[in-house]
């Protein structure tokens, strides 16, 4: 592969189509992913705005929306099955098509070669293919709203029998089949990407870039890609089995005696619990696929904006590796009250809570990285701090849920909704924004507007935090999730009013994001031209002009002589020593 890349990165001029559409350049593909994830985030956000309207004002009629969604909101009144479709697709889109796409597809593609000193990914064509399989995956998911019965409505977890039998819910007619096809395409694309990332990181590091000199972002992307590669295949198998149960009369997940609308089903011999095991065998590692790169980006910001090395780099790497390993073997904590053996449940609880040990090390190292630093509160740093705050509250919330005994009360309540939104919604979103503001100059050679960026932070962080913190408390009060409204139950009388406040905060949050989108796209053309190393950072991507040329470095790829965080080295002339500076010039401190 490497033979095809000329040593000086001098590429013949390519047509527009090859350069920007069917490009094999990792930077272009990364941006394609990032922009796709923004578009999908708008859809996912709009879906949840509709849900929030329903939850705050359950009986209101919205005639305009009735015209827009003639089936789901006939006459302007939302139907419960439409609400469940919105919910299912919001979850699916946000987890897979926004956060995974932005962090691994976007930042993974953009950063890996630049930060490890490679000219491109190991398999550039596979990389392009991966993106162009993601596009139909997105289209199939979105298109499923238009098929008979509407989009899938069995939750992003798609538990059978609800997801397996067409009579169970309208969304389980064709919508669920489209969902399965969309997921299959997504997994195919994601696997190509993952193979590429792992191979590139293992084989294409520049001279001197040992594993323990890699930036923490690369470590986190490496571990996340590995987890994805190991965890997605069981879901692929499960999806095929579900497809068979739906259309070929098999009974992998369906026992005998199922009775729907005066009709006895002919299935027999399967069990719904099998799906739950297969789904969460992916589903739990998947949340680490999301959170690890987010933590990596969060950590990456700290040395740059405190002008001192990351505290406990090695311990952090060991902790991330441990978290990844443990993350693969604790999926059962999603199933404490599922009917799984209680013995197994308790073992999963003990295993799950061991994750708090390495996670707390990461948390402490984040704090200690700020200790004694010279703080520069630029926009990326603000979002990084937001991420730390979310990681704190979200992480502590996890202790309530990982404990099987307290989970009995909290399982399937809004406490869970609040918890996972803070973690795989909040920490990730904060990190994605931090990364966008931080690497924007690398992407386009211009800076994003700092004032708008800070305003964006002060709109996003409090609104996001407030919404999902409130959900923890109404979850403690017992509010079940996935409810169309809360009117039937007297014990939920007190949580109806907070719904209105949560909805208003959600609207604010959504509107606030246009500040970001506007800033992002306007800055591409009008942003202040960026210096080569605008944040005075030590990692390799800042040793080449912005935007980097095809092949990433005009001349030779720089050699690496030190770790990524040599800030304020005693005796050095600058407070930041790039990884490419030889040890003779400035002493190496790790």
């Amino acid at each position, binding site marked *: 592969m490497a033979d095809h890349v000329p040593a000086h990165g001098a590429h013949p001029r390519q047509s527009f189509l090859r350069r920007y559409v069917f490009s094999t350049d990792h930077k272009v593909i990364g941006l394609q992913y990032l922009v796709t994830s923004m578009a999908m985030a708008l859809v996912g956000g709009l879906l949840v705005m509709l849900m929030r309207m329903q939850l705050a004002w359950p009986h209101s009629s919205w005639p305009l929306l009735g015209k827009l969604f003639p089936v789901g909101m006939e006459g302007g009144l939302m139907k419960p*099955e439409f609400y*469940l479709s919105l919910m299912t697709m919001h979850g699916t889109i946000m987890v897979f098509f926004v956060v995974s796409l932005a962090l691994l597809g976007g930042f993974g593609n953009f950063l890996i070669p630049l930060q490890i000193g490679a000219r491109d990914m190991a398999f550039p064509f596979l990389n392009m293919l991966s993106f162009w399989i993601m596009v139909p995956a997105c289209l199939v998911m979105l298109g499923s709203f238009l098929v008979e019965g509407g989009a899938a*409505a*069995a939750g992003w977890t798609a*538990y059978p029998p609800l997801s397996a039998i067409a009579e169970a819910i309208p969304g389980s007619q064709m919508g669920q089949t489209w969902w399965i096809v969309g997921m299959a395409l997504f997994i195919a694309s994601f696997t190509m990407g993952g193979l590429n990332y792992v191979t590139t990181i293992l084989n294409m590091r520049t001279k001197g870039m040992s594993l323990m000199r890699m930036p923490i972002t690369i470590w986190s992307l490496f571990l996340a890609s590995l987890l994805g590669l190991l965890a997605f295949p069981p879901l692929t198998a499960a999806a095929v089995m579900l497809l068979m149960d739906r259309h070929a009369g098999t009974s992998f997940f369906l*026992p005998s*005696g*199922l*009775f*729907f609308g*005066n009709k006895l089903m002919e299935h027999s011999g399967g*069990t*719904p619990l099998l799906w739950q095991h297969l789904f969460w065998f992916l589903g739990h590692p998947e949340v680490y696929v999301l959170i690890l790169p987010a933590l990596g980006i969060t950590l990456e910001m700290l040395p740059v904006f405190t002008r001192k*090395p990351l*505290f*406990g780099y*090695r311990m952090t790497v060991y*902790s991330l590796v441990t978290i990844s390993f443990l993350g693969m073997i604790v999926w059962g904590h999603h199933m404490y009250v*599922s*009917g799984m053996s209680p013995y197994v*449940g*308790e073992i999963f*609880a*003990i295993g799950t*809570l061991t994750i*708090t*040990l390495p996670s707390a*090390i990461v*948390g*402490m190292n984040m704090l200690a990285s*700020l*200790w*004694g630093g*010279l*703080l*520069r*509160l*630029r926009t990326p740093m603000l979002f990084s*701090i937001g991420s730390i705050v979310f990681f*704190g509250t979200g992480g*502590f919330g996890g*202790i*309530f849920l990982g*404990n099987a*005994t*307290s989970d*009995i*009360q909290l*399982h*399937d*309540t809004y406490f869970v909704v609040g918890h996972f939104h803070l973690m795989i919604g909040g920490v990730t979103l904060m990190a994605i924004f931090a990364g966008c503001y931080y690497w924007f100059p690398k992407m386009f050679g211009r800076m994003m507007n700092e004032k708008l960026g800070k305003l964006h932070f002060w709109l996003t962080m409090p609104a996001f*935090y407030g919404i999902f913190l409130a959900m923890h*408390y109404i979850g403690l009060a*017992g509010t*079940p999730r*996935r*409810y169309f409204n809360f009117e039937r139950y007297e*014990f939920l009388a007190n949580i109806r009013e907070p719904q209105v406040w949560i909805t208003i905060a959600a609207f604010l949050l959504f509107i606030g994001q246009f500040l970001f989108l506007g800033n992002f796209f306007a800055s591409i053309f009008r942003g202040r031209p960026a210096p080569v190393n605008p944040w005075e950072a030590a990692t390799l991507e800042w040793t080449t002009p912005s935007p980097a040329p095809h092949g990433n470095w005009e001349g030779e790829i720089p050699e690496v002589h030190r770790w990524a965080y040599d800030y304020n080295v005693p005796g050095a002339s600058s*407070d930041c020593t790039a990884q490419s500076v030889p040890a003779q010039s400035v002493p190496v*401190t790790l």
Partner: protein
Amino acid sequence: MGENGGCRRGTASAESLFLAIVVWLIGIIVVGLGARQWLPELASDHGAGIDRMLTYILYCVGGLLLIGHGLLGWFLWKGAGRDRISFRMAEHRVERNWSLIPMIVMALVAEGGVLVLGLPVWAKIYGPPPADSIVVEVTGEQFAWNIRYPGADGKFGKQEAKLLSLDNPLGLDSKDPDGKDDIIGLNSIHVPIHKPIKIRLKSKDVLHSFYLPHLRVKQDAVPGMTIEFWFVPTKKGNFELPCAELCGLGHYEMGGMLIVQSEEEFTKWLEENKNG
């Protein structure tokens, strides 16, 4: 020193103080709200153990959260006022030793909690019910709870899937003598106070979840499985029974009621509902 470092320190520290105050407030608000009573009023025996587990975590986590936010705010506030870093990096050995602190704390808080406070409660809930338990069979369907008592003989009548119909929602075999005295109901479960109640939980279509928020009971109903668990109600009154596992478009309305009565009232109810 970069252009962004020292020159605008005044505004920088005002901004960082503001951020620090927000961080401190977050910590205080989270813990302050957490200290309020959110859980529905307790009405079961084992529920006290679950509440103790929750309270323990709330206290521990609340303390850690305050410490964490206190430190974070402090570092942010102090960090912007400096003109040089006051601490660069520690040796690997020191970093390793520091890592022991969060490990020990979490081992005590999280693992200690689950092993010392959690495990005994868990073992009791899923352990064998007392021999004098009152048995109630609950069968979930879209979107109702079918209730069945075994009657005076203590035996449930036979069920057959092929007998299922809209008129016979449980597929009961009318010829089976064991079923003659079974008491059948819908959505209302009558039980006596301070007696162990054993639930046999089933489902005939999709997953449901038997959730009694006041009694700290939650158990999924899985088609093809019969899942047993037990609890002891400790308060008289009507307690709502929502479904906690997404089961279809009527999920939000699939509500039942647990009616906890005195032993005399319960016996009277059994007499009145005896069908021959």
